[in-house]
């Protein structure tokens, strides 16, 4: 993503709209609902060799083979055993040759929320464990603060350690 796009992101426009809220190690996150293709329960993942541990492997999504990334591991959070509320959010991200389907493993999906741009604050540079680039902003909601993720960046092929 170029500089101009970054600036755009700083403006209010892009943060507005519906977000899918999910939990990860007790923190609340959100990602643009337009990127979400579907939410599925945990299923058998076939592990792949020679890849960073956060790339869990591949699953069979009704005949298509798609990679799955464990977001806890990706963000350096403590790994946790999968339980019945663990689910895979299938997202459509930008690849260099068009959209790419990928699954992300999250603790649980919480809600669909509307975000008012007025309530979004820019990402503070706090020496976060998370790369500030991954975060579009912090949305202040009634129940607390949600971290809005820029999922295209999080699941970028280079960021995932998949590129050569």
């Amino acid at each position, binding site marked *: 993503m170029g500089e101009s796009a970054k600036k755009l992101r700083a403006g209010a426009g892009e943060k507005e709209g519906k977000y899918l809220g999910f939990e990860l190690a007790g923190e609340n996150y959100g990602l643009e609902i337009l990127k979400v293709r579907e939410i599925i329960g945990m299923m058998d993942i076939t592990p792949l060799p020679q890849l960073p541990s956060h790339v869990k492997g591949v*699953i*069979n999504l009704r005949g298509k083979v798609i990679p799955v990334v464990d977001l806890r591991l990706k963000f350096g959070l403590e790994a946790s055993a999968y339980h019945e509320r663990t689910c895979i959010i299938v997202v459509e991200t930008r690849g260099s040759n068009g959209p790419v389907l990928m699954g992300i493993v999250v603790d649980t999906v919480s809600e669909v929320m509307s975000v008012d741009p007025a309530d979004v604050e820019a990402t503070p540079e706090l020496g976060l464990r998370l790369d500030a680039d991954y975060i579009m902003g912090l949305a202040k909601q009634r129940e607390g603060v949600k971290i809005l993720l820029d999922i295209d960046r999080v699941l970028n092929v280079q960021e995932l350690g998949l590129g050569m």
Partner: protein
Amino acid sequence: MSQEHEGEQLSGAVSALAAQLVLTDPSDIPSMGRLLNSLERVAETDQAGVLRQVCEASRQIAERLVMGEVGDAAAALEQVAAGTALMQEILDGRFKGLKTKEMRIEAFLSQVGGRPAECQSAPGQEGAGAKSQPPDDNAEAMDLDLYRSFVAEATEGLEQIEVKVLSLEESPDDKELLNAIFRTFHTLKGTSGFLSLEAVNHIAHHTENLLDKMRDSRLRANHQIVDFILDTVDLVKGLIGGILERIEAGKSPEIDVDLEAFSRKLAAVESEPGATPALGEVLVQKGLVSSEDIDAALAQQGSAEQPAKLGEILVHEGKATAKEVTQALREQKQIASEAAARTVRVDTSKLDNLVDMVGELVITQSQVRQNPQLGGALDQKLTRDLSQLSRIISDLQRTAMSLRMVPIRQTFQKMIRLVRDLAKKSDKEVELVMQGDETEIDRNMVDEIYEPLVHMVRNAIDHGLERPEEREAAGKSRCGRVLLRAYHKGGSIIIEISEDGRGLHRERIVAKAIEKGLIDRGDHLDDHEVWNLIFAAGFSTAEKVSEVSGRGVGMDVVRRAVEKLHGKIDIQSTLGQGTIFSMRLPLTMAIIDGMVVKVGPERYIIPTAAVRESLRLERGAYFTVAGRGEMINIRGKLMPLIRLHQLFDVVPRYSDPYTSLIVVVENEGRQKCLMVDELLGKQELVIKSLGEALKSLKGVTGGAILGDGRVGLIMDVGGIFDLTGGGDRLGRPPAMGAEPGDIDLFGLDAGGEPAMA
């Protein structure tokens, strides 16, 4: 030409115009181009000039329509229609008095004639003035669009011509074929005309005239004409190739070509008398008559007052039976009729989706059937319905897979041209025979096999076949024969390229291989192993191989390409009699014949084409080299051991090579042993891409959905070899203390029947 005949032609042209008009959509440029062609055709035929004014006025309207200079496109097209109707009426001779006719023409001209001026001056007519006046960006972009659709259409047309012209050589009397070629050049002429591509227009125009003469049987297709048309196709391709780039760069769309040279060649071709007819060729090809007989018959045909048909002469002279001639004629016709097969173009991604879905349907179905709840309620009707369902599903699966299949003909036909060109270049006489070109193969394999096929055909002609003099000296016919053959065999397609050339020279290959350090001595190798040496990389790179062995140009490339497709390549050769290369390829890249193995909790798929055998080790077969490199000794052959569980990072059930199973795999002539827990069996699996994100993954080519819906990874044997490194290309581990002579070069005698556990 008689007047009556001309009148008939003219009304024919006008009817064609009327028919074209119905199909014309003003927003569709190519259809407008065709309309313009029809109009021009009328103008050309109308030598007496009865329709000249009306036709010219209609043409102007149509041209303005194409250029977007007309505000109301529908109304303008109406005017063209009115003009066409008027032309039809004039030809029908419906006007009693000359006056009525004149008046009607006047009326039409005044109705449309004033219009262009109106359009440009009237401010109310939006679009018209704006677009025709100083070419602003919009007009330029539109122009570019015009050129773009022209280039696309022309390129497609030219490609079709190539194939058709080549068939024309075989059947010069096929009017359908001639018409098709004629139409393409005609369209090319029309469209290039209004795009002011003068050179293209000039070439197309003159080629069209040539073809017209052929349609009127004033000329007959022969080698020279076919060559000329092919050259013309290349010339035009070259001309239109860079049009878009040149326009975008603000240059003139056309480049200079030597039109005079073109005209000279054309004149030379036109003065050439007709040569061997196709019927004769068919008969000669079938071995029914000799070419001398045909020549004699032709001479007779040429000198006769009332030329009889070739077939008749041959039968009359007793050279061929009537039945044989009829059969040959039928064969001739068949080629033309097959082209008219009905097809629908579908995006391949839709087909892939369909195949994916059907695959899931199969899995879901088997899961439903295995549901224990069903076992309890064993109802007869339910059982019947379920088996009906599974029959339908397997039919559906078969149909879905067959949608991707196309005959290999297309690929074979491209070879015709290649063979012609190569034969000419190398001064050899080559006859190309194709068999089984209706054999079907997956659409996406077509592109993949093209390159290895070209290599092999080139190799066969360049190095396999001798020069005519050499052939004569060896007691063979001057004309070498290359046979291209395809057939299905047990779920694979076999493509054979055989030629009756000089054959492989065993001693020379062995000498060369020793010189290259590929082997130490050759006496223990059987022929098969020797032939395989020519596939070794580097066998042919250093010097011109043709001087040494007469073989081997880029054959390692061929083998790599074939192995990439999970296929195998094989050679049979007899010195002095020729060589047969046969490629065995899977029918589709979508399906892999795989051996499913289990390592720890995971299942992996090894392409069966790479598997040599599987076995349990006998005591003492396993040893280590320098404490690290693990080796296996199977019947005197030493191969490195790869522990798959280490490579794929899983916990295996057995970590002792003696308790686990060993699978011997081969890639590019190297063999290695894979250690697995158990074999689950052989299975045909649909290959799924792991997607763009995982394309850089080594050792894995894709995934496959297994019977329980889980994904199994398909191994890339070449990738695994690279990952595990060690050993040179021939499978010799580094610094190994064994006697080099003990190492079987390619270990081919291990091939054959893999022992399934």
